[in-house]
């Protein structure tokens, strides 16, 4: 018995060091492989965009982002984003409230339907909108009688972007609101707050970071959406070109420096998105430890 114990103890003392050595070795290899992999797949492409953009000097760069076609594309992208993000935010809040605060039949189905746009190819999203709003579509004749052009114009691009970015805000809010629970809101209501007061003073402060996070993701995707918008825009220069479509045209015309210059603007926005996201996460962590 006694010798057994001693033996076991000896093993125990010996073992951790062996494991530690092994871990140190695997740790180094794994970290190195990860660095290499991420450098090749993420870092090099990101750096490369800026290198290419400035390849022919800053004169060409600024000319590329300040000519009238580029400015029109930037304006259209901004307009589309400014319409899409608020609408999808309202939808996201409504959907998250509905799903996390009430019990009803078909809830699981509704959840799946909200996520549906993520599973549909953007090209198909564009196609179905062409079928629906096009001249042969269900709504096409109605809108053309009213004199509203949807296809190959700004409304079509907005709707396509709304389709593709619809789930973002809802998806971020649902887990946050689920975790929060509804006790605080119930307390507010039973103490006599109106629905709006409850929302502004209780719900909103609780969900603000998740909401902001969903909105910046929605924003990033709205700026960058290509497939769906490409189908529906008709690509009329200066009229229906968003920034990604402008990049495509420049690239196909072999104006590589100009294409990368406009691309670099969108990359800056992407970096900004990632920075805000990291900041939100850092805040949430700090709040948790505090």
């Amino acid at each position: 018995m006694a010798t057994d114990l001693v033996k076991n103890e000896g093993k125990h003392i010996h073992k951790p060091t062996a494991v530690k050595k092994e871990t140190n070795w695997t740790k180094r290899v794994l970290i190195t492989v990860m660095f290499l992999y991420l450098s090749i797949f993420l870092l090099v492409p990101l750096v490369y965009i800026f290198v290419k953009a400035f390849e022919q000097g800053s004169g060409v760069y600024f000319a590329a982002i300040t000519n009238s076609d580029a400015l029109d594309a930037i304006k259209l992208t901004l307009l589309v984003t400014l319409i899409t993000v608020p609408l999808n935010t309202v939808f996201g809040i409504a959907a998250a409230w509905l799903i996390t605060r009430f019990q009803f039949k078909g809830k699981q189905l509704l959840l799946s339907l909200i996520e549906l746009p993520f599973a549909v190819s953007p090209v198909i999203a564009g196609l179905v909108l062409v079928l629906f709003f096009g001249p042969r579509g269900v709504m096409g004749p109605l809108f053309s009688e009213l004199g509203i052009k949807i296809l190959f114009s700004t409304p079509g691009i907005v709707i396509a972007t709304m389709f593709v970015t619809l789930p973002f805000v809802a998806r971020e809010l649902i887990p946050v609101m689920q975790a929060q629970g509804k006790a605080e809101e119930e307390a507010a209501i039973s103490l006599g707050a109106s629905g709006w007061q409850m929302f502004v003073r209780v719900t909103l402060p609780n969900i603000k970071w998740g909401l902001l996070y969903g909105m910046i993701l929605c924003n990033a995707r709205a700026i960058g959406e290509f497939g769906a918008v490409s189908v529906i825009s008709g690509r009329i220069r200066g009229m229906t070109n968003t920034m990604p479509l402008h990049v495509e045209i420049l690239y196909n015309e072999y104006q590589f420096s100009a294409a990368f210059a406009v691309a670099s603007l969108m990359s800056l926005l992407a970096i900004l998105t990632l920075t805000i996201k990291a900041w939100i996460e850092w805040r949430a962590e700090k709040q948790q430890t505090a």
Partner: protein
Amino acid sequence: MKRKRRKKNVLPGFGLTMGITTMYLSIIVLIPLSMVFIESSKLGWQGFIEVVTSDRVLHAYKISFLTAFSAALINAVFGLMIAWVLVRYSFPGKRLIDGLIDLPFALPTAVAGIALTTLYAEDGWIGQFFTLLNIKVAFTPLGITVALVFIGLPFVVRIIQPVLENIEKEVEEAASSLGATKKQIFTKVIFPELLPSLLTGFSLAFARGIGEYGSVIFIAGNMPMNTEIAPLMIMTKLEQFDYAGATAIAAVMLVVSFLCLIIINLLQKWSRKHEMQGE
């Protein structure tokens, strides 16, 4: 019973949010999407089959599925590794790396497309090394896979990370003190715990891969019967005003996407069960 009902009705906004959610979803997504099945039914069964089984279309499906599958597989392996390193080890620059993982979500796909195409072209920064090995990347199915690996990279990492964080150290310590080797602990304790989320991440990356357009069309080169992907076939048919044909191809892709969704849902249920059992 009465009490329960009253409790349910305390919070306001059921009608309002139900109205907004279903209206918005129907107008923007559901009704337009149902057009796919209406429009493709105009072809009749015979015509439908003819379109979706023509050589060029079949080849496009094959390319889309094969490249999406290989990319999702690569992402599953490296995603698991990256998640492991980010959760288990500390090293300088960790926060920066962790933030960078989401780049493919934030970067417009067309931007990624042109950057990868010029990088992997025969004389590009990365492509030149492949040229030495006599491998062409850009304008081949390999190039499409590279683009899809880029696009799908965050899916597996972001799904595995929280699960790995939640695995209790005690279980591993127990296994270790019972004499399990590091390898045994990983294959018998950790990996089974991660498997449902690993498969979910794989399916998400795969589903995204078959539908991806922006990052792929630049690097694919779009040669018929060679590097044409299914979404591009839809685009081509649309440009020829062959709406029914485009819709038929889309219908097949939609069915595959729905199957992916169902599988993902089942996997998530499975992983939830796993968690409950763990507790």
